[in-house]
């Protein structure tokens, strides 16, 4: 198999040997082999895998700790200036947008259940910025930043949050259901785990187009990314999809945003084996654990996982250890998490870490970064103005899109569209 980059995802001989020898006796060997191969990686995060609690990870790339895991040193940054600025801008956009959401919510412009992504930007930026336009992203209810990273204009996302007709789903989805066909964002799902089978199907479709219909692209297969949280990893749908994806070697990456909490349930108390990455090898796919507060680390892992998928080597399970700085949703008082845990993670704020990295490696100056901040502030302000001034959906839109026929419910006995029957919106007409 092709050589790997600095990031050692468990080598392919693990998977090929496994598939050729069907003996159950060999499985424990493979599992031990794969985990020991993984632990031989001198990755800062590998140490954390064996030591609990989880939040003992040091970020080898961005911190000042010069471990040999990082291929970077003060003179050899891991990324180019352009990439670093792109990552910085994307993370700042995510953060500023979410902060503005909170403001708008408390002013009553936005309603419903809103779940903010503060603190987890490194995962979204690290993965999604490596994708092409035709790659697909499936997310959860915490999807604003995934949408922004994938390229959905902030105007459209903000308008959707306000419920206006100019939003990306014409105001019908709201905060938890961002969809965009143009950007291949297959949605936000309010229900945990529901997006994973959808992503699996999308990955199958990509593989089918490539192998059967021979509509190949020079880069390889279109990759699908499925984002979900730690709580979802105890749900049946997750396991079913891991099985199907590996069985059919689908070009999908399962990205677990492990922020240790599922509303008020601590991951460590809800899961028999809290190391989620281990669930990958149990199904025959590589499982990787990465520090989700370090965007460059995430990007490295993502690069390898995406390359694997594009080549047709199949799925990968990536567990990103991350943290949300705010509560589960804007209605959550967030009383259960301990202050020292929160402080520990705020000290590892991905944006601050990247900023420090950029400045230390001389990739950009402080003032350039500040001008990016200012630019993003303007973008977000513009998005709010746009959303504010957009119209609310007309009442007739309520009945559209229930079925494929844009007029919804077909023709009534009087020859007119049923939805035009004045009794229809009273709920008393015969449909």
């Amino acid at each position: 198999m092709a050589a790997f980059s600095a990031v050692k995802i468990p080598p392919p001989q693990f998977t090929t040997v496994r598939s050729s020898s069907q003996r159950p006796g060999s499985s424990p060997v493979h599992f031990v082999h794969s985990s020991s191969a993984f632990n031989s990686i001198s990755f800062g995060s590998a140490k954390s895998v064996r030591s609990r609690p989880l939040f003992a990870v040091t970020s080898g790339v961005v911190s000042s700790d010069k471990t040999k895991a990082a291929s970077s040193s003060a003179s050899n940054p891991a990324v180019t200036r352009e990439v670093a600025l792109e990552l910085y801008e994307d993370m700042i956009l995510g953060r500023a947008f979410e902060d503005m959401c909170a403001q708008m919510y408390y002013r009553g412009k936005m309603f419903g259940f809103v779940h903010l992504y503060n603190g987890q930007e490194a995962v979204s930026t690290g993965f999604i910025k490596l994708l092409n336009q035709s790659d697909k992203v499936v997310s959860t209810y915490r999807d604003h930043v995934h949408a922004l990273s994938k390229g959905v204009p902030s105007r459209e996302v903000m308008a959707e949050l306000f419920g206006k007709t100019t939003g990306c789903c014409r105001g019908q989805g709201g905060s938890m259901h961002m969809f965009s066909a143009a950007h291949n964002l297959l949605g936000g799902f309010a229900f945990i785990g529901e997006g994973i089978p959808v992503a699996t199907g999308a990955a199958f479709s990509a593989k089918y187009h490539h192998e059967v219909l021979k509509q190949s692209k020079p880069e390889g297969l279109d990759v699908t990314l499925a984002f979900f949280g730690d709580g979802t990893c105890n749900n049946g749908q997750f396991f079913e999809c891991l099985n199907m994806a590996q069985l059919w070697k689908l070009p999908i990456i399962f990205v677990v945003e492990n922020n240790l909490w599922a509303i008020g349930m601590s991951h460590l108390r809800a899961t028999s084996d809290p190391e989620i990455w281990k669930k990958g090898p149990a199904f025959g796919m590589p499982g990787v654990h990465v520090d989700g507060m370090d965007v460059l680390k995430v990007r490295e892992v993502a690069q390898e996982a995406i390359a694997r998928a594009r080549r047709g080597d199949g799925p990968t399970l990536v567990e990103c250890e991350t943290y949300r700085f705010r509560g589960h949703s804007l209605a959550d008082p967030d009383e259960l998490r301990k202050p020292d845990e929160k402080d520990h993670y705020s000290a590892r704020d991905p944006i601050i870490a990247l900023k420090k990295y950029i400045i230390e490696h001389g990739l950009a100056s402080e003032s350039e970064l500040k001008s990016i901040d200012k630019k993003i502030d303007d973008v977000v302000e513009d998005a709010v103005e746009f959303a504010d001034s957009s119209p609310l959906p007309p009442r007739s839109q309520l009945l559209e899109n229930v079925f494929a026929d844009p007029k919804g419910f077909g023709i009534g006995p009087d020859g007119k569209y049923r939805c035009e029957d004045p009794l229809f919106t009273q709920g008393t007409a015969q449909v």
Partner: protein
Amino acid sequence: MAMISKDPVQACTATTLRQFDSSKKMAMALRKFGKDGISIWRRGFSSSAGLESSSTRDATPVNLFTAINQALHIALDTDPRSYVFGEDVSFGGVFRCTTGLAEQFGRQRVFNTPLCEQGIAGFAIGLAAMGNRAIAEIQFADYIFPAFDQLVNEAAKFRYRSGNEFNCGGLTIRSPYGAVGHGGHYHSQSPEAFFCHVPGLKVVIPRSPYQAKGLLLASIRDPNPVVFFEPKWLYRLAVEEVPDADYMLPLSQAEVVREGKDITLVGWGAQLSILEQACEDAEKEGISCELIDLRTLIPWDKETVEASVSKTGRLLVSHEAPVTGGFGAEISASIIERCFLRLEAPVARVCGLDTPFPLVYEPFYMPTKNKILDAIKSTVNY
């Protein structure tokens, strides 16, 4: 009348259970809720017709989630083999219905489950099959669909297919349902109709705190699996005098909340308060409405509704769920079968629209007071 159920579940565990008479139960309840809740003077009750408990009239005004919390405390107290579990219940639940339970009864009896509704329901069925009272919480009724398979295929059929060798009568599934103003697609659904189609399950929906506590205790102690939907809109909004004691309200008995002679209105849950407002408005226009709260959806009290329609000759059913295939259809069909010659007008159904529960359009979707009022008038003037 406070019912003490002599169900097989309780009977077969009689050696481990203590038999309570109402005064003992009351004493225990009072000890738990003694605090400052015991009022010496008697207070009147709300529109619910009559007090159905022979125990003390000492009561406190509480809201819906507190009433449910009280019911759960009593249930866990009176049966040492009852368990409460679900997502996030140990800190009190996202709606605070389970506050204090874990502290009082221990984490072996009140515990969090991982996020797997199918697992929660199946696990609850297993517990119930072994003679325990499993009170599972599904965090929002919208999430009950993964559990639907277990409830329909296993819980409803357990006693039937084992020839009464086993049963999961101790199973109660509690779930907040219904619109809340800003819930959107997945925090507002009313799935009661799906469960009403399953012989073997009971579906119970309270309209107020007093009803909720009594009905929940009755559901928990009923020897059949019950799905108990709580109107989440009313969790904080509805405040009512609720007796501190242990009391139960009968299942499968509808309640005539308001007497009238021109038209019968039937509803349940949060919709009752909307119907009541419509009744008041109709009264001003000279239409006298009889309002019935169904309380138990299956098996539903056909006799009470039939008697009422025989008196008034007109029926209107209202619920939040979409009109096509909603439970209103069953009520309409049954009443027409029974009262065909008496009916003066077609049965009106004022329900949600046939669309997925919308986000921004919620006010248009919902069966509002005005829609009901219009339907009342057109039915009366048919």
